[in-house]
Every structure is written in structure tokens, then in C-alpha cells.
């Protein structure tokens, strides 16, 4: 187990380093960041001045080492637009994104796993086909469009729910359904196929032959084994939601880090953009590392392979 964790940790460190380099250099790829900041009709002298002020005239690796060193001490620089420290900007808004991500993943996992179990137990029935159709829908529906349709139906026609802002929990209902529905299909498919595999296994037949209640067999014996891959899916999905909520945040005017990233990208506020990209990547790496360790702990076959 120790060796397994150690090996995974080394990979995670290397991947994190690479991701931080990419996140850092991404907005510098175009080469004329200073030009962009100075404006279209700036004279060369002004561009050079801007480049010097933000240290953009130094070699890229010097800039990176400087930025990474500061970042390690918690200093992510200041926004070029509001002049606030980037760490404060992110801190103010991460709560909204985290709430949305947690609600959405709960929505997706609860509905997906329930549908998956039901579909597998009643394979090829109407319920199974209905669950599959729902999964196909969820995969194909553009989430910005789904959000707008929900706004039209529940916010405008029925007037049941608020359509923008993040003041109360009610504000999160429509965004959660929008985002949750689009990440639900993998939970349903994974649970269903896992359950189908397990339900045909010998030990399930034995459990049934012993005369255990179907309920006990399905939940105590089958689901426990079928649910293992869902642990990894939870980590991957949560990591995706942190960076993928930008569209839903924009549709429902939720002031999270997705919207902040989008606004900062539009105004070339590179200290904010690079910080968010690297932050979200690190969260993903940490989560998947955790999921691997949990999986290895749950299933010895993984850590001994």
C-alpha cells in the first residue's frame, strides 16, 4: 500500500508541475500580452512600458519561477483589472462554485445510481429503456440551452423559482438541475453495467439460493461491489465541475470562479486566469489521487497489480 501511494504521489507531483507551467504560459502563447494590455492603438514605447511594469520583458522561465515562488507563499499576484489580490478574488467566489458543484454531484450521483440499479435489476424492461433514454438525453443536451429552457418554464411561465443570483438556496435549484443532469449519464451507465456484471456472478446466485431477500442481495451483496468504479467517477466529475461550471454560472448569473475566469479571460486579466486554471487542475489531481488511494484500500487487486 505504501509503495502504491508513493508511486501515485510521484506521478501527481510531476503532472502538477507540468500543469502549472502550461497554466502559466497559456495566455502568453500569443506573444503580445503587453500589446493586448496596452490597447490596440498604443505606441511601441507605451507597450514596452507596460511590458516592463508587469515584468513581461523578462525571459519566460524567470517569470515562471518568480510567479511559482510567490504562489507557494500564497501570493498569487494582483488582478490587473480590480487590483485586488487574486487569492482574495478567488476566495470570495469559490464558495458559490463549490456549492453548485456539491449540489450537482449529489443530484447526479443519487439519480444516476438509483436509475442504474433499477435498470440493471429490471434489465430490458420499460424502466431500463427509460433510464437509458434519459442518459442519452443528458449526454446530448447543451447545458446552456437546458438552463435557458428551465428558466423559461420554471422562472417565467410557472414563476416557481428565481432565475439568477446566488443569495438563497432556492437560487441553486435550477443551476443544480442543469449541471447535474448533464453529468448524470456516466453514473447511470457505470452503475448499470457494474450491476449487470455482478448480478451474474456465482456468489450472487449463492446468496439467492440461500433464500436471502432480493433486497438484501441487491443492496448488501451486489451494489457494494458494483459501486467501486463510482468512487473514481465522483472524483473525476467533481474536478470537472469546478472548471466546467463556467457556462451554467454565466446563464444563471452565479458569481463563482467560472464566471470570474470567463470575465478575466475576456479582459486579458492574466494573473487571475492562470491562478484559476492551475487551482482547478490541482484540485482535479488531488481528487483523483485520493480516489485512487480509496479504491486501492477498498480493492486489494488494484494496489497489488
Amino acid at each position, binding site marked *: 500500500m505504501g509503495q502504491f501511494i508513493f508511486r501515485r504521489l510521484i*506521478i501527481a507531483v*510531476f*503532472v*502538477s508541475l*507540468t*500543469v502549472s507551467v*502550461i*497554466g502559466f504560459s*497559456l*495566455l502568453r*502563447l*500569443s506573444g503580445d500580452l503587453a500589446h493586448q494590455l496596452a490597447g490596440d492603438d498604443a505606441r511601441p514605447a507605451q507597450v514596452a512600458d507596460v511590458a516592463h511594469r508587469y515584468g513581461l520583458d523578462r525571459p519566460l522561465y524567470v517569470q515562471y519561477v518568480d510567479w511559482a515562488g510567490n504562489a507557494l507563499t500564497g501570493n498569487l499576484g494582483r488582478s490587473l483589472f480590480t487590483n485586488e489580490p487574486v487569492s482574495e478574488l478567488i476566495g470570495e467566489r469559490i464558495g458559490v462554485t463549490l456549492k453548485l458543484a456539491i449540489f450537482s454531484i449529489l443530484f447526479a450521483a443519487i439519480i444516476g445510481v438509483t436509475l442504474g440499479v433499477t435498470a440493471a435489476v429490471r434489465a430490458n424492461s420499460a424502466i431500463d429503456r427509460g433510464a437509458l433514454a434519459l442518459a*442519452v*438525453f443528458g*449526454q*446530448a*443536451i*447543451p*447545458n*446552456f*440551452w437546458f438552463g*435557458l*429552457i428551465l*428558466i*423559461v418554464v420554471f422562472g*417565467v411561465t410557472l414563476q416557481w423559482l428565481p432565475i439568477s443570483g446566488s443569495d438563497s438556496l432556492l437560487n441553486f435549484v435550477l443551476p443544480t438541475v442543469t449541471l447535474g443532469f448533464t453529468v448524470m449519464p456516466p453514473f447511470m451507465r457505470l452503475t*448499470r*453495467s457494474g450491476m*449487470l*456484471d455482478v448480478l451474474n456472478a456465482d456468489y450472487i446466485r449463492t446468496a439467492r439460493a440461500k433464500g436471502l431477500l432480493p433486497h438484501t442481495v441487491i443492496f448488501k451483496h451486489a451494489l457494494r461491489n458494483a459501486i467501486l468504479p463510482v468512487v473514481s467517477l465522483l472524483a*473525476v466529475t467533481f*474536478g*470537472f465541475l*469546478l*472548471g*466546467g461550471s*463556467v*457556462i451554467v454560472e*454565466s446563464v444563471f448569473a452565479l458569481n463563482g470562479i*467560472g464566471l470570474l*475566469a*470567463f470575465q478575466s*479571460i*475576456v479582459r*486579458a486579466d492574466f494573473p487571475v*486566469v492562470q491562478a*484559476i*486554471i492551475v487551482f*482547478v*487542475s*490541482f484540485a*482535479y*489531481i488531488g481528487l*483523483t489521487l485520493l480516489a485512487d488511494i480509496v479504491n486501492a484500500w477498498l480493492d486489494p487487486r488494484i494496489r497489488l497489480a
Partner: protein
Amino acid sequence: MVALDNAVTDSTAEEMRWPSPFAVMRRRALHHRGLLIGGAWLLLMILVAVLAPLIAPHDPYEQDLTARLIEPVWGMGGSWAHPLGTDALGRDYLSRIIFGARVSLIVGFGASFISGLIGVSLGLIGGYFGGRTDGFVMYLVNVKLALPGILVALSLVAMFGGSITALVIILGFLFWERYAVVTRSATQQIRRAEFVLAAQACGASRLRIIVGEILPNVLNQVIVVATLEMAIAILVEAALSFLGLGTQPPTPSWGLMVSEGRNFIFYKPYLIELPGAAIFLLVMAINMLGDGVRDVTAPEGRN
């Protein structure tokens, strides 16, 4: 004796002959409802995109400020002059949706082709050579997975502009990891197969073995991934255009049309509903086609 054998096989050939793998697949395909419906819709959309100038009733760019925000034919005041109504600038909505199919399909095919080239190459190399080479490929995949795709795409599009060429290249370079993972594991499974060892024994070069022996045998799985990635590329292009950083006005792109209709969401919802439905149906058709191809080529893996 030989003659007798031949006679036996000949006489029973008609009823005993095993159908060729291709015939089996064709028969399965013709009985697969999802594959047929999905394939037919995709084909129809391709025809619409190719023939757009011939079938569109109006010029999609032509503004008519006296005919703004006309409802579709089933709405109040709608008429067959503009079957799906007009937008805020009086442009014919049906024509814009017809031309919008071009953007989605070009981006979908283009991006999934580029990411396919990258991902399949990496998967073949990693799966065939194994060891450190494979470790490096997996490291690249891990880096790619960790990066938030949509935020990176937004940043790149903000820098390089939202032309269709730029979108195809950017999305092509962003969504290759699934190709790599699937190709790699498929390659690992057949790397030690007898026909590969036979080619090695004949002295075939590694390149020849990879391209001539392994690639054709993993192609079915690659095609399934290709449909999935095409659907994702279409959704991401629509999302980027919706956020205003993808396809730029006045080009008719379905995502951009939803975004332009957003100001009229309260009293002209068809402006949002129609282009959104077009994206939804196209993506669903492609997914159904992909699921169907998987069922037909590898029914044992279905469940």
C-alpha cells in the same frame, strides 16, 4: 478422395456457408434502430449543410428591418414566407439554421479528425512499445485530463480568435485523450496476438506492423470514440459561441443564435428553442450512431 471432399462442401455450401463478418455486421446494422435513426439524421444534416445555398429560402445574412421578430408559422402572425420566423434583425431563421449546420458539422468533423490523429498515434505508440514510452504517453494523458478543458479552450479562443479554422484546431488539440486511452488498451490486447507475431517473424518493420496489422484491428473502437468526440466538439463550439468567444457574428452558428435570442427569452422563446433543438438533435443522432456502431462491431461488449 479430394473430389469427394469438394463434392460434399459444394453440395452443402448453400445452406452451410457461414456469412462473412461483413454480412453479419450489415445484418445487425439493418436491425439496429438507434444506428439507423442516428445515421439517417446525421446524413440528412450533412446534405442540408452541403446543399444549404440551394435549399435555404432566403439569404441568411440579409436583414429586413421591416420584418423583425416574426413568429414561426405556428405562432401568432407567422406565415410561410418565413417558416421558422425571423430574428431581431429580420433575418430568416430557417435559412440561418440551415447554414448553421455547416459550422457545427465542420467543427465536429474537423476537431474529431485532428484529435483522432493525435490520440490514436499516441495510443498506438504507448500500447505497442510499453515501458517508459507508455509511461510518457500516460503522463501526457494525465496532464491533459487535469487541465480544465473549457477554460483552456476559452483562453485559447480569446487569443487566437473565433474563426472556424481556429476553433477546429483548438478543439482538435484539446480532446484527444479518450482516443489515446482507448487505442492504447486495444493495442495492448492484440500486441501479442499471433498475426502480429507472424508479421514480426516475416521481418516487417515496426511502422508496418503498427500501421498495417494493429491499426486496422483497433479501428472499430476508434470510430466509436470519434463519434463521441465529434458530439463533444459540437457541444463545446456551441457553448463557446454562446459565451461570445466562439464563432463571431454575423456567421450563423447555432450556439451564437441561442445567445442572440437570449435578450428575447421572455416573449420570443422560439429564438432560443429552435437553434438549441438543432444542436440537441444533431448531438443525439451522433451519439446514437456511435452506440449503434459499438453494438454492431462488438456486440459482446454491450450491456
